């Protein structure tokens, strides 16, 4: 049973390896049909999912660990390649592999006819494998391996269309910004290692010995681990890579935003819950960062015109919700939102990708309009997803968002609660702004007359996800609505506070959330449902330019680092290092020149020197021999 764990992780890696070899064969030897690539690529995530599901069915209540082999052994520090399946990692692995698999299917339709079809799926499988490694790892070091792995894969996939310089810049940006976060993560991990590494470094022994860390250092560790999460999960101030990550093909965006990568930060905080529950001040800091990020990103999203950018900002915003939840200690609610978000965000991206595909890679929503007619499936599923993210009953987002808001309110963080409530209104506003503009509004003259017909590979996963976006919420339906809140029960080991407020307040909050969301929809309807996209829409202003954050970072950090690098180059490298090395070389040269004077090609001079030398020799001999 426990050996299955390694297969869950190893299969996507094996798939990736096979695809790479097959792709090389395809390039160097003989063309390979796309179908063979898709066969491998779609099979491995499916088997991973089925194995995970098998474990879920058979052993969901047990903690399973499997140690494959010893990875590092330095003195008395042991790091194993070891996997862990408990409620948290099993939960993550289930939806990561399932949604990852659906996105693979979608990608098979989306990438059809692309030159690097095999390469794309090799990266894709690797991405999924790295994420599963991150989730199922039994110690932070192995988790960090997966953590870096998803960073690498995101870089590879964001700059997938590498012939365009802009995409390469976006890939670099994602990678470099993530490095900043990872640096914090390494500091946190190393500090943790210094204090209790000798007691064993798997999660169980960390949890058991966390009391040995001095309390002042606990906050330090918790803070720096969270810096890693900020980078990976795109929160203020390191969120800037995520919108630019839209340069990759749309399935990549779906995979990054729904199933892999960005949820890693939330997972990590939940994984270290034993640490964060001891440092409530850091937890509050996390919640504040989350709240600020969600508000900030939502404000920016209201004025964007690129369909994928809007969705990217909405991801930052929703991740903010999750961090509010885990920061305040409501791990179950946070992970519930991760779960529901995975469904509707994957669906949104895939729907957006379908629209983009239909319109021959047009991404400006104001060049769209009337897409309702183009494909019924895309229209209805997108509507479901939009309702779900807006938090309308009974769609998935309603339950999870409500739970987070309820938690924030009940634990007395009224400011955060108010910010999040306002953000919820903004969310439904900008999502329906997108929806109405793309699907309802009179079509723009720039829109393609005859949209492309979509392949079933693209549309069927949408339907599955749409069903998921409706049903997923009921798993965590609160008691008050007649549900059993299976999610909270499942995650009972976190020991989340179970705050009971009176039913009136709980109901009141639910109604308030719904009213705020509906208000957002109403404003969006008023403003955008009836507009005619024939008239070129002009959007400008502070918000459209994303508060010039990118430019500010550029001026403050990037430019200064460049200047520093230039200074080091010009002064230290050129003058000092080069100067010293060249001085040594030149001095040998000049010495050589002095010797070379003797080698002047003048035969008579040679003869004379021979005479001179011989004379000296003989004089010496005469002196010695006497």
């Amino acid at each position, binding site marked *: 049973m426990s050996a299955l764990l390694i297969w869950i992780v190893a299969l996507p890696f094996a798939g990736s390896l096979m695809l790479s070899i097959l792709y090389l064969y395809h390039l160097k030897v003989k063309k390979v049909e796309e179908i063979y690539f898709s066969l491998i690529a779609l099979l491995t995530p499916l088997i991973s999912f089925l194995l995970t599901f098998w474990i879920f069915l058979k052993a969901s209540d047990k903690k399973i660990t499997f140690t494959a082999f010893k990875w590092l052994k330095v003195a008395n520090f042991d790091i194993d390649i070891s996997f862990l399946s408990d409620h948290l990692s099993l939960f993550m692995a289930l939806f990561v592999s399932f949604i990852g698999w659906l996105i693979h299917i979608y990608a098979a339709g989306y990438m059809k006819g692309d030159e690097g079809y095999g390469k794309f799926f090799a990266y894709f499988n690797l991405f999924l494998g790295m994420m599963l490694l991150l989730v199922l790892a039994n110690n932070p070091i192995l988790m960090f391996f997966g953590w870096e792995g998803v960073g690498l894969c995101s870089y590879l996939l964001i700059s997938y269309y590498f012939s365009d310089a802009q995409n390469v810049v976006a890939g670099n940006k994602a990678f470099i910004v993530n490095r900043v976060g990872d640096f914090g993560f390494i500091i946190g991990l190393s500090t943790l290692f210094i204090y209790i590494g000798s007691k064993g470094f798997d999660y169980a022994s960390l949890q058991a010995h966390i009391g040995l860390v001095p309390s002042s250092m606990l906050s330090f560790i918790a803070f720096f681990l969270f810096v890693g999460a900020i980078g990976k999960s795109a929160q203020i101030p390191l969120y800037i890579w995520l919108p630019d990550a839209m340069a990759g093909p749309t399935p990549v965006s779906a995979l990054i935003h729904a199933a892999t990568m960005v949820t890693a930060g939330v997972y990590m905080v939940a994984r270290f819950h034993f640490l964060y529950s001891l440092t409530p001040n850091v937890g509050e800091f996390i919640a504040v960062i989350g709240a600020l990020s969600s508000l900030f990103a939502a404000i920016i999203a209201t004025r964007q015109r690129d369909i994928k950018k809007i969705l990217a900002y909405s991801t930052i915003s929703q991740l903010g919700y999750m961090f509010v939840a885990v920061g305040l200690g409501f791990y179950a609610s946070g992970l519930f939102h991760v779960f529901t978000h995975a469904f509707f965000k994957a669906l949104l991206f895939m729907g957006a990708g379908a629209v983009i595909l239909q319109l021959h890679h047009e991404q400006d929503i104001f060049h769209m309009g009337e897409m309702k007619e183009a494909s019924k499936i895309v229209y209805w599923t997108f509507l479901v997803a939009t309702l779900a993210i807006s938090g309308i009953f009974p769609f998935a987002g309603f339950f999870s968002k409500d739970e987070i808001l309820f938690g924030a309110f009940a634990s007395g963080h009224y400011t955060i609660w108010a910010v999040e409530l306002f953000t919820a209104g903004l969310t439904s506003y900008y999502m329906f702004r997108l929806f109405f503009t793309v699907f309802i509004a009179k079509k723009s003259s720039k829109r393609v007359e005859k949209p492309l017909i979509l392949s079933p590979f693209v549309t069927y996963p949408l339907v599955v996800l749409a069903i998921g976006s409706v049903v997923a919420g009921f798993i965590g339906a609160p008691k008050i609505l007649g549900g059993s809140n299976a999610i909270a029960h499942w995650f009972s080991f976190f020991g989340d506070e179970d705050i009971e407020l009176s039913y009136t307040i709980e109901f009141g909050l639910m109604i308030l959330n719904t009213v705020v969301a509906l208000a957002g929809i109403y404003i969006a309807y008023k403003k955008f449902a009836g507009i005619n996209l024939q008239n070129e829409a002009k959007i400008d202003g502070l918000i459209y330019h994303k508060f010039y954050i990118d430019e500010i970072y550029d001026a403050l950090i990037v430019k200064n680092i460049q200047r520093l690098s230039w200074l080091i180059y010009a002064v230290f490298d050129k003058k000092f290092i080069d100067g010293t090395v060249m001085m040594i070389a*030149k001095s040998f*040269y000049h010495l050589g*020149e002095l010797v*070379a*004077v003797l*080698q*002047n*090609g*003048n*035969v*008579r001079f040679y*003869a*004379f020197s021979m*005479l001179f030398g011989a004379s000296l020799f003989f004089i010496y001999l005469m002196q010695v021999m006497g």
Partner: protein
Amino acid sequence: MMSIYSVLIVAIALFSIGIVGVISRKNIFIVYMSLELMLNAVNLMFVAFSRYFHSLDGQIISMMVIALSAAEAALFLSLVVLLYKRKGSLNVDIFNSLAQKRDNL
């Protein structure tokens, strides 16, 4: 019978004239003649010592040197012809293509 010293003095004088010729003259033929002069000065010494010590070794060597210098003359003169064709001059100072060239650093 003349003493060995007078013969040796002649030989040393010839050798010195040869050296001065090699060092100071520019015409390659004169340089060559000076070289031959030095060789013959050494020959003379060999023969003189051979007589003095009643041994034939010195005479054998001097015969070998004579033969050698004859062969050398053939080679040398043909080389000089080639050099003259290439450079158009008999001045030894311009035969310096193997010298260290001064380049810029």
